[in-house]
């Protein structure tokens, strides 16, 4: 449990760093980019707030678990439960396939309207495929 406590403490620090980093990145980009504006900037602000809220919620949850041994044990069981891990693994594999097919379909559709969007989506599919191949090769060598 002491090992897990250290892991949680590390996670708390990481959450704080994510909050600060994302906010700093947004402020720096706002300061040094003058061309961006309108909807794009609003969407970026939405993403920043989304990330910060998620990081803050995790931070509050982990910080309260660190103060309460029962909560920490419950959190440990919840995170290390093998059925939960199996569900997450199964969901991740399927959602990755569905996402890639969806983005590829969107890239094809976008090709008829806007070249930039088509290339951006195609790039996202290629990047996902590349990450997937690299991960598979890595796990084949380590398992």
């Amino acid at each position, binding site marked *: 449990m002491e090992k897990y406590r250290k892991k949680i403490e590390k996670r708390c620090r990481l959450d704080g760093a994510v909050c600060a980093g994302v906010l700093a990145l947004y402020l720096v980009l706002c300061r040094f980019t003058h061309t961006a504006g309108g909807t794009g900037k609003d969407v970026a602000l939405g993403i920043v707030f989304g990330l910060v809220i998620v990081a803050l919620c995790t931070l509050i949850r982990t910080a309260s678990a660190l103060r309460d041994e029962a909560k920490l044990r419950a959190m*440990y*069981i*919840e995170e290390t*439960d*093998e*059925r*939960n891990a199996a569900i997450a693994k199964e969901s991740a594999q399927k959602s990755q396939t569905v996402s890639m097919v969806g983005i590829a379909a969107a890239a094809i559709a976008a090709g008829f309207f806007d070249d930039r969007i088509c290339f951006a989506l195609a790039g996202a599919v290629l990047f996902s495929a590349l990450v997937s191949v690299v991960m598979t090769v890595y796990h084949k060598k380590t398992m």
Partner: protein
Amino acid sequence: MKNRIQELRKARKVTQQELADALCVTRQTIISLENGRYNASLLLAHKAAQFFGITIEELFLFEDDEKGDA
């Protein structure tokens, strides 16, 4: 795979939560195991068998038709 977890748990008057706590899993995992919806890993099977003081073969009933499964 069938198992005798529910039968042995009830015989020993242990609740699902108590068993879950002892095996370091969630209660939902115990429910799924008892219903046969989830097959335990070797590690969990070993822990469960140890908890009940029997062997894995006595706790988990490996049927002939499952032997050919990949």
